[in-house]
Structures are given as C-alpha cells and as structure tokens.
C-alpha cells in the first residue's frame, strides 16, 4: 500500500493507486492539520491529486522524481479556480 498514513502525515510511496483515495480522504477528514509527504512518490493518479487540491494539506516534501515535481509543484501551490469559461458548444 503506497500511501501510508500515520498520526498527522500521509506518506506517498512510489506508484500510488486510485485505491488509496478512500483511506486518504479519511485521513484528510480526520486529521486536524494533515501533512503530506510526497518525497518518494513517483506516480500520482488524478483522484489523489484531486483530493490534495481540495483539502490543501501541508505538503512537507515534494517528489524527488523531477518530472512529477515539475508539474505537480505549481499545481499544488496555486489556488485552483472555479471553472469560469463555458464549455464550448459542440
């Protein structure tokens, strides 16, 4: 299981899978000031990213994986806007 939640920190290990979404959500809900350690994360599925974006936990470490860090860091550091542009009529 690559997402390991202890008292206040959820540690993401290597390839994380969507199955972690429920335990992670539980962790984010139940923990007062949740922290997330992404240092050893090498793959982050959208469902987990969505949780992180929503709950905005304190990220104690960004991934060492440069490619992942490259896109993840700005994403997690900037506030997510609510969608303002209407979907193009098709």
């Amino acid at each position: 299981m690559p997402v390991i939640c202890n008292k206040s920190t959820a540690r993401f290990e290597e390839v994380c899978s969507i199955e972690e979404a429920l335990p992670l959500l539980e962790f984010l809900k139940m923990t007062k000031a949740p922290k997330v350690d992404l240092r050893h994360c090498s793959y982050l599925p959208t469902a987990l990213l969505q949780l992180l974006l929503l709950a905005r936990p304190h990220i104690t470490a960004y991934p060492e994986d440069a490619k992942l860090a490259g896109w993840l860091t700005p994403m997690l550091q900037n506030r997510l806007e609510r969608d303002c542009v209407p979907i193009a009529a098709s």
Partner: protein
Amino acid sequence: MTTLMQRFIPESREYLESAASGLLRLERDPTDQGLVNEVFRAVHTLKGASGLFELPGLTRLLHAAEDLLGAARENQLTLDSAIVDLLLDALDRVGHWVDELERSGGLPMDAEGVSAELSRKLRALLPECEGSAEAVSAVSQILPPGWLDNFTETEIQSAIAILGEGGPSLLAIDYLPNDDCFYRGEDPVNLLLQLDPVVAVKLAWHNHPVPLAELDPFRCQLRLRALTTMTKEAAEGLFRYVIDQVTLYPVPADALRPPVAADPRTDIEPASAPLAAIRATSAPLANSGMAGRLLAGQRRIAAMPGDPETLRRRSVALVATLTNLMHSLDWSALEFDLDGAGLAAAGGTPAPLLALIDLLQARLPVTADQSPLAMTADKDIGGLVATGIELRKSSRMLKVDQAKVDSLMTLIAELVVSKNSLPFLAKRAEDVYGSREMGREIKDQYAVIDRLAQEMQRAILDVRMLPVTEVFERFPRLVRDLSRKLGKQIELRMQGEDTAADKNIIEALGDPLIHLVRNAIDHGVEMPAQRLAAGKPECATILLAAFQDGDQVVIEVSDDGKGIDPAVIRAKAVEKGLIDAARAQSLSDQDAANLIFLPGFSTASEVSDLSGRGVGMDVVRTAIDKINGQVTLTSRQGEGTLIRLSLPLSMAVTRVMMVEIDGELFGVPMDGVLATVRIAATQIHHIKNAETFVLRDSIVPLVRLRALLDLPMQGEQAAEEAVLVARVGAHTVGLVVDRFREGMDVILKPMDGLLAGLKGYAGSAMLGDGRVLLVLNLKELL
C-alpha cells in the same frame, strides 16, 4: 520479460480461445445473450489487461472488436457470418501478436498498420457511424474567446516564444473528464501529461468543489486544459479512448496576447490559501526543514540536464516554486532576479539559478533532520507487509511448470523400478543367508511399498492427465473455415471430450487429428448436390469421439461422406508403383483402403492447400506409431469412413515381457504381445525354408530370436518351443525364445551416444538387481 507479461501471455491465450469458441457458437445462435456477454467479457478483459503494457496496436484492435461486440450486446446489430469472420480474423491477429510478444517481447513492425486497418473494418460495421471514435473529434473547433485566460502570463509567454520561433503550431486541449471516469480506469491528469511536449497544464474545478465531508473521492470534478505543440493527429491518438471528453483547438497566433511590457512578476498570483496559512507561521516553516528540503530539491532539478524543451518547461516550474516559497517565507521576491535566472536556465545555463538557490539556502536557519518520523513510518511498512501476507488467500488452483511435474514423475518412476529390487533381496536372504523368515518379512514390506509406489504413480499420472478437449476445441473453427471455403455443409459433432490422457499423448495428437479432419472434409464429404443425389441429407456430419478402452484411449474420426473406393485406391497404388497389379487385385477391399497409409500415396488428383500433399496419412501413422498407438481404418463406399486411433493412456512407464535367450534377458513391449504359447515340435510346419504354425485357425510365421539376434543356435531341437506371439504392424509373428520370464514395469531409456545408431532395440532399462535389460523393437528387428 516481466512477471506481469509472463502472466499476461498465457492468460490472453485463454481469453482469445474462449472468445473464439464463443463466437463460433454465436454464429449458430446469434440470439444467445449469455454467449454475447461471455465473448464481450473475454475481449473486454483482454483489452483491459493489454492496457498494462505499451501495446497500442493490440489494444486498439481489441477495443474496436469490443465496440462491435458491445453493439451486438445491445442488439444494435446481429452477428452474421461476415462479422464473425472479421472478428475471428482480429482475434487471430491478436493471437499472433501474443506469440510474437512471447518470442521477442514486442509487436511486429507492421502491427500498427494492420491494427489500424482491421479496426477500421470492424468499426465500419458498427451501426450508424457515431461509434467511430475518430469521427467524433472536433475537427474545426474555434478557440472560444477568453480560453487562454486560464493560463498565466509566463505560460502564455513561453507559448508565444514557441510560436515566434516559427516552429510548430500550438494546440489547445480542453479535457472535461466524465464524472465516473475513474471507474473506467482513466487517469486524466497523467494522460494529459503524456503530451510531449507540453507547454502548459491548467487544472480547474469543473463545478463548485464539494466540501471534503461530502466528497466522493471517485468522482472526477476537475477540468483540464493544456497547451502543446503536438500535432492534432498525435494528440487524437493519445486521447483516443477519451476522445469524446476532449476538445482540441488549433491556437491562432493572434489569440495569444501580445507580450505585456509590465514586469511579469507583478502578474504572479498571490499564494494560495494554505500557503497563506503557512506564511502566517513562517518561522516553523523555516525551522521545519521543509524549506531547506524544498530548496535542495529545486536545486537538484535545476542542475539536471535535459533537452531545450524540457529545460524551458522546468525553469518555468522552478521559478514558480521559488517565488511561492519566498512569498511564504515573507522574503521579498524582488530582491532576487528570479526571472532572469529562470530564463538563463531555460537557455541551458543553470548556473545563475543554482547560485540563487544556494543564496536562499544560506539564509535558512539550520534545522535538525526529521529522521525519527522516517523510522516510525518504516515500522508501519513492516506491519502492513505482515498483514498483507495474512490477507492473501491461497488460491485453489496451482499452476506448476511442467518440468517440475516431469521431474517428479521421473523420480516416482525410478522408485517404482527400484522397489523391484526388493524381491531379489528377499531371495538373497533366503538363498545366501538362509533366513526364510527374513525373506518373508522383506516380501511383506515390499507389498506395502509396492502399493504406495503404484498409488503415487497413479496420482502423478493424474496430474499430467489432460482432457481431449485440449485438442478437440480447435476443430469447430477448422471445420467451419474449411467447409465455408469449399462450399460444403458440415456439422461437427464431438463426443467424450472429457476423456483424459497423458499430456504428451494429447499434445502428440494435435497434428494427426488435423490431418484426419482435413482429409474427411476435403476427400470424404461430398458437395451438397452430390449428397442430395445420393439420398443423403445435405449437411454432412463429422464425428469426433473419444473414449477409454481398458488402458487405451480411443479417438475416432468418422464422416458420412463418400467413403473410400477400393478400386480407385488399387489403381492409384499400382500407378504410383507402390505395389504390383497382381498383388493389388488379391487384396481385400479393406486392405486396399489401408493402402492410403503407404508413404507417398495421395488420392487427390491435384494438390490443394487443405490436404492431399501425398503425405497426409503416412504422417498420421508415423506420428501415432511414435507414441505407441495404432491407426485402423474402416470404410464403406458411399457410407463413410471411420478412422480409429488407439493410444496408450500414458507413456512414462513401459510394461515389458521379459524373455530369456541364451542366458540373456530381453524385454518385449507388452502392448505388442498377443499370447505366449508352447508349440510342440510336431506342430511346426515348414513352408519352403520358413517355419510356421497354426494359431486359432490362422497361419503364423515363426521366427527364431536366436537367429535374429545372431546368438548361437541350440544344438538339438527341443520337443516343445516357447513361442511369444506378437503383433508387428499389421502382422502377427511367433517368436521362439528359450524361456518366458515375468512381466515388469520399466522406464525405457532410449539408446543414445554410441549406441544411438543400433537397430532393433527400443531402448534399455535397469533391472532391480542392477542388470541392464535390452528392450527389443520388433518392428525394426524383423
């Protein structure tokens, strides 16, 4: 090859087989909803599994097949023969690719093209072309105004930089994943990031984000936008499975805002809410070591080499991170020429940026490492692994490498043979040590070991037993394809598919049976018109039957076709010079039909690609001989042909009859032995210089094994001869031996090394007392 791939290959074969056999049954009864589901599931599962590997061609083809089956499942189309043909073609192709994967670890070079072509054909069959995924893509969508506002100035600027270079055109991607996309295994963000090169990615909440307490983590609420310089075709390829959720817009050059003169740094968004919270307690952040680690991480990223495109994208990210970090630490970003350093890094000179990060690191207070945290976490992993093991349920089926079963079987067979030494030991106890008591006890123990050994042998043979379905299941397809090709109507019936035989036997049966079934279709069954004229039903029947007969497995292939015309066979055999005319006339009709087993005999006037290369039946007999089986043929002209294969159940242990000649022991395979008789010298008749005797009203030639084996003849003729009556091929022969000994189970070891060329011996075996027993091959000897 990875373990995953090793599992995928056999599994995919199973799915392909079940899908193909399901399709064949479906063709007969297209309304069977259960069957449609079964086939659909097989193809669907296979497609899903193939997605684990980088096999786009294979996955795409399976996807097309799945769509077609999906339409059939929803009763939008009926699976007629043409569709089934195409689907079978597709499955065959996938089968070849799987073979190729096993051989070389990849798909053949032409896989992509073949896949595209076949997928196109499959999709063309879909009702109302809306199913054609490629057609759905928005071809000439115009970028909605304001769309680019989603991106920051920096990102727009890098986009402008790309366009300014006169390079490739920019493509905007708007990806609105379905709510339930996670359930379909889609991973929108990571899919988007597979765009290469990606200029910018932007995420947004599609609706008001649900509060955490009510959140369903498996609903996607994001909307994704990206800019890329990829071509539209390549992007469509990437998003082929979610193309209905994606809109692609070409970005016109003038849609990009002209570069703003103002300092871009003012454009940077204020830090987001959590970061603001962190900023409020910036001292802990600085002390926590996180800032230091973040900087160290950024420094590593900045120092990494890469192609210009990667460097540029990376520097954008680096600058954003550092800016935010400085915000949260309440340091003024203006103190440092971040953007200048970022631009230099994008240009391939990371030195200014590295120096800047070093400067920032020097400003941070020194903190202690947080190793205790790491240690507790490690302990957690240990606990998790332990529970994982407990949770893993043992599966009921065990897949074992055949070699392991084989070596186990060899060991058990050795045990069976070595237990044979106990009776010798008992005899020695009596004869040499004079202890009858001891001899009897050894014999008692021998009985126990004997029983156990035989049970073990039976058990291990059971493990190796396979049902004949293994070979039978390919025939529905074969019969269907061939009969369609030849314009004949044939129904294939199968009986006794559960009959089991040793794996080696089953495997050796494959090719001979294909020959036989092809022969039956090609030569046996007549054209529908001929059948009607002969008063038979238009649709012919080919019956494949298997059953057990004693320690033999019998497989019968019969057809109700035209049978074999003995006159034609006779003429043909004479014409080919296989036998002379006089002999041909003297043969009974039955024997004449058996002439087709002669090497080089072919009744087909012209060589077709089905059968009739003049080798067919000869090959069948050779292959069956090799596994100690027998082939018999009965045919009635106008009524049909029946070919019967009798095979041993197993070939691990050979039972031999031991005979003594000139003080030496020889073995004769028991399955050739018909009888052991004692013939008085007076009963031996001499025909010219050949000896014969009469056994059950037929004349049996008599052969002296001493003469055959070049052993010295006995001086005087005994009053009574021990004769072993054996079947050699189609003939019966009496073999004169000195004495009969007991029958025995042995493991026959073929002659190898220097003895490999020796004719007349099937092999050698070890006797319980350590002697070597030579086992005769009567066919070669006579």
